[in-house]
């Protein structure tokens, strides 16, 4: 329903206006990136310096040297990718079954899964915390990975379910007539056709796991702590290290911002459980 403008002048004027709005919304991110290239002194100068400062990469170097940034980054990668991969194994089989061999209870099962996602984490914080403490899973990569996996499992099942539903049933029946057993059917027929859907499910879940900041803040301290927790450590009031905070933040959000930009279309479907496509 794209509207076209009658006069080119109006078109330009509206475009300029739209870009101003867009730049305003984007400004905090832009400002963060810019600050990461300033010295600490320039970062807090008044009036703020836009481009006329001494550009430096020192903050990036220092963030790593002083606080072992890469350990946290590594944890973020391991936790988000790991939890997504585990999730895929469970979710692909489950969504496959629900999409292609539905029973009377399938719909209820799906809605029940959805409702678990509506449970506020504080409702289960206490027992999970205690169980993790007693089982030695606090600040443990495996433990937090499982939490992230379980947290996103309903979304993964739902997303994959909506993708699988779009694959014509005929093709799977044809495979069955061709003598493919269930595992072969999945491996040779279903998976290749579902690759785009699976890929976007993966991306969305990596994003969600990467940015998850309730469980990671509550269940990790240092060994298993991902970037969310690392950045949170900058909240202590002693000294203002804005340039370093900005450098660390830029590194923490850059990869996910890029993934997010790539998967923006699928995001809508994933986050609305297929209610808006």
């Amino acid at each position, binding site marked *: 329903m794209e509207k076209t403008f009658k006069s080119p002048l109006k078109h330009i004027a509206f475009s300029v206006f739209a870009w101003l709005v867009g730049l305003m919304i984007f400004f905090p991110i832009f400002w963060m990136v810019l600050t990461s290239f300033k010295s600490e002194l320039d970062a807090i100068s008044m009036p703020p310096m836009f481009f006329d400062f001494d550009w430096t990469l020192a903050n990036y170097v220092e963030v790593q040297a002083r606080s072992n940034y890469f350990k946290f980054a590594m944890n973020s990668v391991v936790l988000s990718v790991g939890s997504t991969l585990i999730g895929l194994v469970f979710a692909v089989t489950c969504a496959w079954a629900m999409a292609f061999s539905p029973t009377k209870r399938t719909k209820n099962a799906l809605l029940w899964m959805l409702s678990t996602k509506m449970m506020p984490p504080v409702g289960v914080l206490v027992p999970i915390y205690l169980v993790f403490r007693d089982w030695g899973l606090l600040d443990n990569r495996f433990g937090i990975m499982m939490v992230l996996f379980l947290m996103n499992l309903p979304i993964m099942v739902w997303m994959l379910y909506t993708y699988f539903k779009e694959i*014509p049933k*005929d*093709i799977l*029946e*044809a*495979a*069955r*007539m*061709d*003598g*493919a*057993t269930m595992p*072969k059917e999945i491996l*040779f*027929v279903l998976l*290749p*056709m579902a690759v785009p859907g699976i890929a976007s499910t993966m991306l969305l879940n990596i994003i969600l796991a990467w940015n998850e900041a309730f469980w990671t803040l509550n269940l990790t301290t240092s060994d298993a702590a991902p970037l969310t927790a690392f950045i949170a450590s900058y909240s202590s009031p002693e000294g203002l290290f804005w340039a370093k905070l900005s450098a660390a933040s830029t590194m923490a959000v850059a990869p996910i911002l890029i993934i997010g930009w790539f998967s923006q279309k699928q995001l809508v479907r994933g986050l609305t459980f297929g209610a808006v496509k």
Partner: protein
Amino acid sequence: MGAIRLEKVRKTFGNLDVIPGVDLDINDGEFVVFVGPSGCGKSTLLRLIAGLEDVSGGKILIDGTDVVDASPAKRGLSMVFQSYALYPHMTVYNNIAFGLKMAGESKAVIEEKVRNAADILNLTDYLDRRPGALSGGQRQRVAIGRAIVRNPAAFLFDEPLSNLDASLRVNMRLEITALHQSLKTTMVYVTHDQVEAMTMANKIVVLQAGRVEQVGAPMELYNRPANKFVAGFIGSPKMNFIEGAYAGQRNSHTLGIRPEHIAVSTESGEIAATVKIAEHLGAETYLHVVADDIGPMTVRATGEMPLGEHDRIWLTPDATRLHRFDAHGQAITAP
């Protein structure tokens, strides 16, 4: 070998009794066509034979063995789907080869069989393409190729031509008939299309609401329909059904007269009628008329007829080709 025998085959979906009980014999090498109105259970019956649905009761015997508990692949049948159901991510070659790979055939055997099938179906030049880059007719041939290579006991077709345009449909119809003549394999074919049914079948099975209304050779159904339903279903334009005095004089409740069995004259005849609409097709003319004392009728006359609205004409049905039905719609065979 591919003799298929259905014994009291039933299918229910929940409370819905889709197939209340079908008995049917399909001989080896026969070309059997299922026809019937939409929703009458043709596809369901075919899928029961294929093993894509479980029967709710009864037996399905293929060459004498009951297969109701066998998986689709174990039944040794091939199916061609209406939507073609090609694997979009595989080349034509791999689409055709897939069943053989699943059966664990050697590379050499697969290669030979696929080339052979491609040869028969004129697909050799397209083997490296994906289905997305093929025309409708070519896709249809790939789907058939996929069915052929498995060397099945019988082929199952579910409205395979309904997605093709009219002229292509005629070509494919001939190709499938030729294929049947050269392979001599049993074929079970579901269609909506009268012409397909009449021209391709050795045996037509007319279904209504999951029941077999009549089974027989095309001309047998045409000449001796067992009831009003079959009489109305086979033949185009549809048979005229006349009730009342005219039928009563001929010892029937309902009298069936095919439009092509009525002679037309502008001067004299048995029944006087007024033309409402004349459809001129060139080789023939369809006349939609209102007959005096009888009501609307359709008449099919060969050649051109210079007739139009309001023209008065006289009709004379061919007395040897009248179909008489009793109050229950069953054909009356006694004179």
